[in-house]
């Protein structure tokens, strides 16, 4: 992988050049004392040293609500798919969020390719940045998601006076050549990058007490653990944990019709397994009617089911769920560690 250097004083120029290109540039901005991704109007709005954006950049690939089909009722039903995709450059995405997008890519392209997702994805450019100030709830170091070698067009690392830029795709290389002032990286600068990454790894406050590969097996043996009931007693079924999660991709599909009772649309909207009616099916049966089974299901999704299905864990350790959960029960790391402890006492 080729590496270049952008001097810090040249970063604003790069960002502003991108903003003036034909793409929408999205980055982490300040919002009510937190950080949130949003459209950039100027480079000065962009925060590159943020710890965690409240919401992942997922909504640029899977919006909270989107129209899938427009239809018209009549003698014959007319229906037309709606596929909307704009060029977006995500600027300053942390590795764990890139890993999450890699999971979404797999989930939305498998046996039933999702044209809406894939059309958006094809128009999204990802400029990553290493996370050097992890959020207190994050545990990426335990999941191998603190850094990434894949999934980006460009990857920045702050080494003090400048950024090292790893080039991950020809598109990234082109953007750099066209819009940025760069120079070759020296060997010592690459060593500095490694040191920065190492230092960041040591800053994580939450860690798994086992290796990530052991999670599916641990969960396999933990179905009857009391921890699910204990924790879920406080659960508000508010869905905050799944709404802020970069790897959650569930949605609900509904039809809406205009007042003329002829034209209508089919849309989808985020949904999540922590909501009471998520597993409600025709006939009124709800196969996860209590918060204990929903709570357990989410943990199994994160640590076992997706692993078995896609070879990737359903959690990248960003810590957003733990930060968002008012009942303070949503962190998968906490539950996994409790389960591990139970096993230890059992064995």
């Amino acid at each position, binding site marked *: 992988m080729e590496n270049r250097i952008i001097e810090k004083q040249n970063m604003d120029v790069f960002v502003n050049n991108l903003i003036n290109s034909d793409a929408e540039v999205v980055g982490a901005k300040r919002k009510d004392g937190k950080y949130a991704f949003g459209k950039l109007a100027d480079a000065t709005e962009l925060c590159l040293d943020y710890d965690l954006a409240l919401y992942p950049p997922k909504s640029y690939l899977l919006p909270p609500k989107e129209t899938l089909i427009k239809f018209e009722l009549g003698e014959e039903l007319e229906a037309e798919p709606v596929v909307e995709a704009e060029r977006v450059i995500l600027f300053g995405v942390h590795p764990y969020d890139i890993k999450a997008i890699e999971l979404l890519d797999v989930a939305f392209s498998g046996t039933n390719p999702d044209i809406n997702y894939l059309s958006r994805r094809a128009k999204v450019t990802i400029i990553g940045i290493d996370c050097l100030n992890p959020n207190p709830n994050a545990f990426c170091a335990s999941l191998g998601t603190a850094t990434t070698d894949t999934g980006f067009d460009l990857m920045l690392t702050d080494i003090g006076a400048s950024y090292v830029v790893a080039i991950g795709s020809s598109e990234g290389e082109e953007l750099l050549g066209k819009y940025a002032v760069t120079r070759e990286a020296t060997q010592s600068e690459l060593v500095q990058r490694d040191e920065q990454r190492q230092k960041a790894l040591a800053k994580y406050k939450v860690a798994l007490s086992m290796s990530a590969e052991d999670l599916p097996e641990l969960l396999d043996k933990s179905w009857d653990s009391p921890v699910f009931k204990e924790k879920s007693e406080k659960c508000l079924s508010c869905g905050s944990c799944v709404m802020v999660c970069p790897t959650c991709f569930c949605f609900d599909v509904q039809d809406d019709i205009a007042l003329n009772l002829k034209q209508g649309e089919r849309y989808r909207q985020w949904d999540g397994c922590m*909501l009471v009616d998520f597993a409600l099916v025709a006939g009124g049966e709800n196969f996860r009617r209590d918060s204990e089974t929903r709570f357990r299901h989410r943990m199994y999704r994160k640590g076992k089911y997706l692993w078995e299905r896609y070879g990737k864990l359903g959690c990248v350790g960003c810590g957003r769920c733990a930060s968002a959960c008012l009942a303070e029960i949503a962190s998968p790391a906490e539950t996994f560690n409790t389960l591990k402890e139970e096993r230890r006492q059992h064995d």
Partner: protein
Amino acid sequence: MKPRLGFFDFTGCEGCQLEVINFEIELVELLELVDIVNFREAMTEKGEDYEIAFIDGAITTESDISRIKEIREQAKIVVAMGACASLGGVNCLKNFRPMEENLKIVYGDCAGYYNTIPARPVSAVVPVEYELPGCPMNRYEFLKLAKALLLGKKFELPNYPVCVECKMVGNVCVFDKGGFCLGPVTRAGCSAICVTTGRHCWGCRGLVDDPNVNSEKEILQKHGLTVDDILNQFRIFNGYLEVSK
């Protein structure tokens, strides 16, 4: 023949009826599909042959009770519009004081000429087919119900808390800004409008079907509210419910 609708106001601010009038374009479209035969806020003629009755306002006097029972007898479908009709709403604040005292505060020396009873939602007096909670009700939800009735489709309110919609629009949680909020137990359907506009959720859409009130109360306490503060918050719109007592 078009379905015939009637609109009836009880004790409330009539804001929910205004929501219907405020439609303008949609109202014209709606009138192609239905006949409105009774609507004091918008017209003078009064028809008594309505099939669907839309009620706004809470039940707060003895005469309200007999009037709503008559409406119920005539209508095939009764819809409670807004927090007052569907929850009791702010009217129930008076339930925490003796009725005589309420009369004195409002009517002074003339108190003896009036009667008042503890406020209650329509459903506490007669069966109600549909409720459109919110203060005021969400007029798009009103349209959704109208369309569902016209098409013979099922109509359901969201059964998840305001937090879901609050997250969908990308808000910073009020609790993270040092405030507090009833969103985690309140029924969604308003796009968390109060949080989005810089305030918090007061619960005007009522509670979700199975709210974890204990957990919510614990959270509010952890964020500095006393037990009294918490009850007062719930009482603003949900005074009729057990959680506020």
